[in-house]
């Protein structure tokens, strides 16, 4: 039963490795847009520190959003997706494998890069660990929610912008709790509350999203 899960996970990671240039893109995007902030706003450390938690989270969200568009696209175009739908394996697990691969390729590097960018934006010391922890869980939620949108728009020719439109409202709770975690830590409050909510959001999306994505993919293939 689990054969499909590991087969897809390994294949997607191998494919990502073969296209190393492409998988670096979200991370570079994250890097560049964060660099734009001091240029557009102010180089003053105290003011940057004030907005750093929110900026880092919003930019990580956008980077994840941009990359999720391709989640099912190549599988759709070369006919693999059709085959996956008729493979005697549970679609739920196969979708989960694809999302996990996506998270390992984008969410995890974004999370690891975030402290460096935090330093560049003069994020106060207390914020680093909460930043990493909240992004670690939050990017996984973003990948899971994004997968639903990617599944719904994979068969459409100009799905990219539409994908952002339908997915971003669903991203808002993650953003709120993610950015608040960091902000509260910087302000000296305990963060276990928002982090626990983050964990709950992750558990909930793990439960719901693969089902919805599987349904979305079936709709896309019927269309």
């Amino acid at each position, binding site marked *: 039963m689990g*054969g499909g899960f590991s087969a897809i996970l390994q294949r997607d990671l191998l494919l990502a490795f073969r296209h190393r240039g492409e998988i670096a893109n979200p991370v570079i995007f994250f890097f560049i847009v964060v660099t734009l902030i001091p240029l557009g706003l102010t180089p003053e450390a105290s003011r940057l520190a004030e907005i750093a938690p929110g900026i880092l989270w919003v930019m990580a969200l956008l980077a994840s959003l941009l990359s999720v568009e391709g989640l099912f696209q190549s599988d759709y175009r070369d006919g693999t997706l059709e085959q996956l739908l008729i493979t005697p*394996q549970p679609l739920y697990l196969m979708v989960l494998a694809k999302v996990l691969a996506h998270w390992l390729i984008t969410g995890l590097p974004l999370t690891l890069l975030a402290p460096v960018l935090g330093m560049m934006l003069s994020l106060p010391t207390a914020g680093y660990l909460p930043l990493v922890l909240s992004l670690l869980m939050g990017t996984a939620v973003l990948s899971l929610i994004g997968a639903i949108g990617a599944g719904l728009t994979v068969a459409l020719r100009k799905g990219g912008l539409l994908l952002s439109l339908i997915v971003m409202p669903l991203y808002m709770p993650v953003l709120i709790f993610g950015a608040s975690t960091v902000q509260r830590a910087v302000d000296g409050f305990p963060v276990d509350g928002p982090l626990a909510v983050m964990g709950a959001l992750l558990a909930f999306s793990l439960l719901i999203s693969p089902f919805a994505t599987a349904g979305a993919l079936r709709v896309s293939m*019927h269309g």
Partner: protein
Amino acid sequence: MSSQAAIFSLKSLAFERDDRLLFSGISVALEPGDILQVEGPNGCGKTTLLRIISTALNPTSGTLFWRGKDISQHRQDYLQNLLFLGHLPGLKQSLSPEENLQWWRRLNANNSLLSNEEVLASMGLRGYEDVPCFTLSAGQQRRAALARLLITEAPLWVLDEPFTAIDKQGVAQLEVLLKDHVKKGGVVILSTHQDLGIDGIRRLSLPLLAEVS
């Protein structure tokens, strides 16, 4: 009584999309050793029919039976016995033919004992096992996709235009493959414009529109 011997059958299958009836009243019973050629002009629903048979699409009405069991109730069991090759080859371009085959093996049960190397060699791809698929020609890619026929033990083959892009020699080779498969008691359903050099082939001509009440 013929339905007793039938291994795979369709009962009054109909498909409608956006209030347009594509076909209806398709009933076929296939016995082990049958080859069914679905034919008809472009846009008549050949691909749709094959996708319904592969369960990628649900029919508007009608039932499919595998070994007497309703497929909608026993989908997983049915899928273990099915090999479907669609229009698109389903090959990952940056993986080699060998890696693609290996991946299919891991995804499906019912694999044959032949090694990937043997399979690719008999498909005329010796020496191309380890190059990425995007360096292969269209015909070679089709051959790499067709290599899946050799790694599966599934008795039911559903092939959508399998002869596209391959040369004469490849066509003959594929015909041999099909004959061998049905000789072993398999069943083949395929769509093609080509006249096959196989005796006793059964034909289904679309469009088929039964009366609608």
